[in-house]
């Protein structure tokens, strides 16, 4: 655990430290009179937590989504499923550690799982490319969802990536082709697919495993077409200006779970413990497991042909435009 404290959380930790100090002092000096003061501060702390976390800005949520202690795909697999058998490799070039895949049982039900995987420390992050998958990752995902189709196992996809890996090798081996093909195949896959954005949903790299019958989002996850930083760089060119405006770009992009629900892109928001999933993994895990199970229950009796038609409808309806009367010929 990094224990990283985000800027906007500092007042909380400062007050916590004060309370701790006072409590220690009260014990060592045996001053019972301080108890009242401690209780008062604890109430203040609870209020402070509520105030800070209840009204997070979009940029603050982006920071929570990127918190190094935030649970990742393998944590949720271990937390809510059993008998995980990890499957490796794309059968063409290599094994991309930024994308994990395998079979697992959810309350005894066999499922196929695919998901981006970030590291929990620098060393693991280097191995996993910070959750940025290359074509091998997307081809592995494609192989696994086709396997799911063959054995009639539902698919669970967990999105958590700042974007697809922007390296030369990834490009050379067909990053765009690999992403396009998995989107396409998931569009017509003959088993149910439930997608959850658990952390970062960066661009095509996220959507690469994002087509499904239900798309859920953790409360503090973000999902849009570009990172706030890249958006800012494109708009403002100048590096300093771009760095200063990234928070405004996060606002402009409307990239939070609440935004996406309003825009008709996701089906539900999974509530997180106060301060984010890393503050209480077991609560976050339980909430997500419940949401996934409920989603399965909603679609489990739908015949697969109908489900695919509904999937097509679902994505066909995404987008906002006006229709004006046709020009007279």
């Amino acid at each position, binding site marked *: 655990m990094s224990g990283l404290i985000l800027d906007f959380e500092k007042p909380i930790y400062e007050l916590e430290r004060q309370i701790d100090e006072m409590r220690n002092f009260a014990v060592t000096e045996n001053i019972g009179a301080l108890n009242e003061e401690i209780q008062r501060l604890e109430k203040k702390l609870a209020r402070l937590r509520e105030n800070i976390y209840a009204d997070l800005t979009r940029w603050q949520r982006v920071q929570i989504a990127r918190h190094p202690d935030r649970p990742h795909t393998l944590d949720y697999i271990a937390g809510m499923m059993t008998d995980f058998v990890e499957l490796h490799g794309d059968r063409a070039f290599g094994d991309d550690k930024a994308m994990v895949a395998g079979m697992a049982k959810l309350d005894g039900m066999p499922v196929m799982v695919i998901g981006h995987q970030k590291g929990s420390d620098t060393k693991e992050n280097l191995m996993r490319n910070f959750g940025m998958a290359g074509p091998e990752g997307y081809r592995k995902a494609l192989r696994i969802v086709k396997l799911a189709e063959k054995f009639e196992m539902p698919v669970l996809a967990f999105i958590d990536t700042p974007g697809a890996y*922007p390296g030369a090798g990834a490009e050379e081996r067909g990053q*765009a082709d690999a992403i396009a093909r998995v*989107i396409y195949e998931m569009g017509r896959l003959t088993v149910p697919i439930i997608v959850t954005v658990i952390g970062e949903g960066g661009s*095509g790299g996220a959507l690469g495993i994002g087509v499904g019958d239900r798309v859920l989002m953790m409360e503090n996850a973000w999902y*849009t*077409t570009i990172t706030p930083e890249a958006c800012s760089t494109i708009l403002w060119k100048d590096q300093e200006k771009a760095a200063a405006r990234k928070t405004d770009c996060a606002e402009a992009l409307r990239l939070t779970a609440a935004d996406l629900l309003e825009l008709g892109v996701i089906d539900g928001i999974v509530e997180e413990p106060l301060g984010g999933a890393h503050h209480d993994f077991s609560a976050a895990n339980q909430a997500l497991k419940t949401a996934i199970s409920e989603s399965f229950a909603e679609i489990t009796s739908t015949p697969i042909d109908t489900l695919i038609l509904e999937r097509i409808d679902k994505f066909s309806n995404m*987008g906002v435009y006006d*229709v*004006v009367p046709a020009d007279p010929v």
Partner: protein
Amino acid sequence: MSWFKKPNSGPKKGDGDRRNIPEGLWIKCDKCDAILFKEDLDRGFRVCSKCGFHFKIGHQKYLSILLDEGSFEERETELRTTDPLQFKEKQNYPDHIKNYQKRSGLTEAVITGKGAIDGRLVSVAIHDPSFIAGSMGSVVGEKIARAIRRSIELRCPLIIISTAGGARMQEGILSLMQMAKTAIWLTRLSEAKLPYISLLTNPTMAGVMASYASLGDFTLAEPGAMIGFTGPRVIEQTIRATLPEGFQTAEFFYERGFVDQVIPRPELKETISRILSYFPDQSMSPESAEEGV
């Protein structure tokens, strides 16, 4: 005044990148610096006669190159871009759109409709670089999806000519979802066993390349076109090195197995027509086709 002009002035309605449109009689090739007679270029394919460089062209030029004369009927002209995110960072999105509409004479970055190639009915969608570099938002995605549906309804082949920097960030997640929308309609086209020819022109990148542009049954590319997912500048920042000459060009991806043929513009119609000749014409006659499809 000099006797020739660097191509940098005066936008012209819907006819490609404005830098390529000169006011003078002569134009200098971007690649080999040859001085070319503008009228020759315009009458031909806008390809440099010395080195084969393909100048950017707009949808109208592609229509005249590809389709039988007078056969094109535009559709989806009623779709208009809105401002679902109320995007105001640096510039109001509606103002941005209005500027491009004024400059390009187009309502959006792709033109869709139907027409004929050597008498064969086809559904076509052509990106135009003069409108926000051909980028994809809700309207572009919807028009592409409807062009695919038109193929299915009329039982005719689909041709998409792509040029785009990618998904348009001012529509955020909705732009991204157009990748899914278009790809999912292509699964239906596949089911209907109708051919889709994807032509990649300069440049076809990011969200467009990672969806319908990559999903052709037949993938053609114009010589020298930049193709890829990540832009070269971002790659160079990632790898902290300069990319070799020709990285991410049509020829580069052809060598790596992602493109069927690199086709010079003068051979485009003939090539596409030859591909189409392998598929029986099962298109609906104009009379039996529903009005307005």
